């Protein structure tokens, strides 16, 4: 395909992002948009920077990140272990395949009230929801990757006297790592979104609660801050994991 170097460079992208911001800012400054409805990006940026000097807000971020970390850790552990264990036998792989087909399309957020009832109102239901929602992409990625591991690798390992359990560590896990990390990438972004929503729906602390209380008192700029922060967290997690996946693939 014939394309100029400008079109293929990153400049059109930078240009379009900048022009959206400039247009938004101008529309607000010229009074075309009421700041109570949509504050200018500069005001949001100033408030988002002020966030990092406010100890109360930083504590809320800490609470949210702890819930996210706990939920993701559970999701990764469950997803990887179940995914690998089930793919070791034909029968268990068939069962897992059906279970995934049955459970993956369910809107997991719907069980949140049930989690609140059974686990209480503290950290547990939020962590559980993050874990359940983030687990599926990790489980599916692991399960598919293990089944695609080249049989020759396993035969040569077995021929050299590697036991089945040792082959798991030495052959299957390294071979699947890039796909597993890709699954974790998807799960991590989902987790960031779900933890915020879980806190918005029922919580007395965390970033989601900051958002809800700002919305109750119509502090529009403050409503943007938790969303910007959580998007940044999701964005950086995604980029960091993409980097990790590339490294794992190059080994």
């Amino acid at each position, binding site marked *: 395909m014939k394309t100029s170097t400008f*079109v*293929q460079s990153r400049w059109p992208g930078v240009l379009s992002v900048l022009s959206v911001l400039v247009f938004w800012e101008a529309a607000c400054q010229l009074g075309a948009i009421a700041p109570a409805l949509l504050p200018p990006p500069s005001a949001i940026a100033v408030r988002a920077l002020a966030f990092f000097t406010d100890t109360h807000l930083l504590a809320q971020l800490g609470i949210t990140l702890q819930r996210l970390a706990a939920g993701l850790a559970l999701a990764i552990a469950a997803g990887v272990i179940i995914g690998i264990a089930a793919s070791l036998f034909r029968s268990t792989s068939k069962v897992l395949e059906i279970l995934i087909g049955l459970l993956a*399309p369910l*809107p*997991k957020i719907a*069980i949140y009230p049930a989690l609140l009832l059974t686990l209480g109102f503290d950290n547990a239901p939020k962590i559980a929801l993050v874990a359940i929602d983030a687990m599926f992409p990790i489980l599916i990625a692991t399960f598919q990757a293990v089944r695609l591991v080249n049989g020759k690798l396993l035969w040569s390992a077995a021929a050299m006297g590697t036991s089945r359990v040792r082959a798991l560590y030495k052959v299957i896990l390294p071979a699947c790592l890039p796909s597993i990390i890709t699954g974790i990438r998807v799960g991590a972004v989902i987790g*960031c979104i779900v933890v915020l929503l879980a806190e918005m729906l029922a919580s007395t602390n965390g970033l989601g609660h900051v958002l809800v209380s700002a*919305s109750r008192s119509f502090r529009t700029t403050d409503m943007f801050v938790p969303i910007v922060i959580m998007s940044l967290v999701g964005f950086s997690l*995604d980029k960091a994991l993409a980097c990790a996946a590339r490294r794992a693939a190059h080994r």
Partner: protein
Amino acid sequence: MRNAPNLALAWKQLLYYVLTATALLLIWQVVAQWIRADYLPGPAVVLPRLGDMLGTPELWSALGASLLRLAISFGLALAGGIALGLAIGRVPLVRSLVEPLLALSYPIPKAAILPIVMLWFGAGDISQVFVIATTATLPIIYHTADGAGRINERLLWAADSMGSTRPRRLWRVILPATLPEIAAGSRTGIMMGLIVMVTAEMIARNDGIGSLLFIYFDMGQNIDMYALIVLLGAVGLALDMLLRWPMRSLTHWATDQ
């Protein structure tokens, strides 16, 4: 249509699904009977309650409101997503202009912006449709752009050399060749739309199944609440199946499905 062995396979698959679902319900019942608590009623009481609720206008009006919003949002998402996706996939300048914006919008928690959108469009349908449609559009754009960008150039040369006009080439070559990817994007899109639909209703607390779910939760009507959860699960499964079949027959000629 398809040949017989495939049909038999589909029935077998369906049987497996039904058996597994029954097993899951049995496990739920055993756990519920073992715990014996108000907060976890078993399916033996929840499923009959769901049957009773299906006879009430209250449930149908909530379900109708939800599904109507989802349908409108999905229609908008399909139209916008396919149009933008084809433009991104076929026009390099559009791709380099729009892709960074899409990449930036990917990690934004869409349902969480509902309180802000409600400032603009009010607490009614428009705000929720806006959020659901935005969510469902993104995967459709990604998949369509991906599919349209990977079309075998020879197909386009062949169309050109046979004197096909640009619009005709788009309609007769590019769109059909992208259809399998559009189908995949639509499935992801509607599932994400369903999740955001429930979440938006839970946040807006206006009408719909998500709102009713939290009303039952607040009132302590636990059996009704679990019945709605089962109903939402069934809706999710039904949508998944519904989009699987027509898409498969629309794209049966595609090799790697």
